[in-house]
């Protein structure tokens, strides 16, 4: 599923502290690659790798302005990730309701100890 793949790319991109720091920097406004690189003791190619991952996940865009390459944050994948989380929360809330009901059923069994296992096929 394309949307699932995109979410996986977003979560994978967010799983790295350097990349989150880059996003935090860009969340304050667009910046040049050099400005983004500044706080990190990292080589240009290493930073460039991180930027590629963020770009592939759709979390940032690059734009050439005059001689500068400007980076900007893209909110949409973050929104999508948040929407996914909200949906999971709702679903798990309902599942835990079902769990509460099922526990009541388990309690009514004559032997709700380990014997229950052996009755299973």
């Amino acid at each position, binding site marked *: 599923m394309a949307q*699932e793949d995109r*979410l*996986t790319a977003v*979560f*994978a991109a*967010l*799983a*790295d*502290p350097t990349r*989150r*720091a880059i*996003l*935090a920097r860009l*969340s*304050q*406004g667009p910046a040049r690659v050099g400005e983004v690189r500044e706080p990190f003791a990292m080589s240009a190619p290493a930073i460039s790798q991180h930027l590629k991952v963020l770009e592939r996940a759709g979390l940032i865009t690059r734009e050439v302005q005059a001689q500068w390459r400007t980076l900007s*944050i893209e*909110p*949409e994948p*973050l*929104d999508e*990730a*948040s*929407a*996914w*989380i*909200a949906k*999971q*929360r709702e*679903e*798990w*809330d*309902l*599942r*835990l309701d*079902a*769990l*509460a*009901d*099922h*526990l*009541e*059923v*388990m*309690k009514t069994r004559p032997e*709700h100890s380990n014997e*229950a*296992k052996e009755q*299973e096929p």
Partner: protein
Amino acid sequence: MSTETKPPEFTIIRTFNATRDLVWRAWTQEAELAQWLRPFGVTTDSVSFDVRVGGVYTYTMMNAETGEKFPTGGQFLEVNPMDRLVFTWGNPEDPVETAPVITLTFTDKGEGTELTFHLRGYDGKPGDGFVYDGWDEALTNFERHLLSSRSE
């Protein structure tokens, strides 16, 4: 675009009127799981759980109306019977490192059991501490940024 952007994780705390042993079994035994894991309109038609560290589980949910199938699965990362269960949760074909992670904590609460259910959108790396710190900060700044650019 929503202004209420939330970090990709959440916690649900529930108290169940059942012993820890029972709640643990409801989470770890296939026959029990098949009874309650289904969400509404979706039936669990296959459940396989190998509850040990590194063990995998799968189950398939099916939407009765559309016939669409949702294979779900993952790997157990931590198994402390009746205490803590940590596992990845997602598409069984996805790599474990990028899969969402669910952490269950079981504690006694009077006669019952308090379950802390925590889900986060991706696995953290060891030594990363609270992996969401950076994310939280990014989102907070981002919201501020959005608000200020809107009011311009």
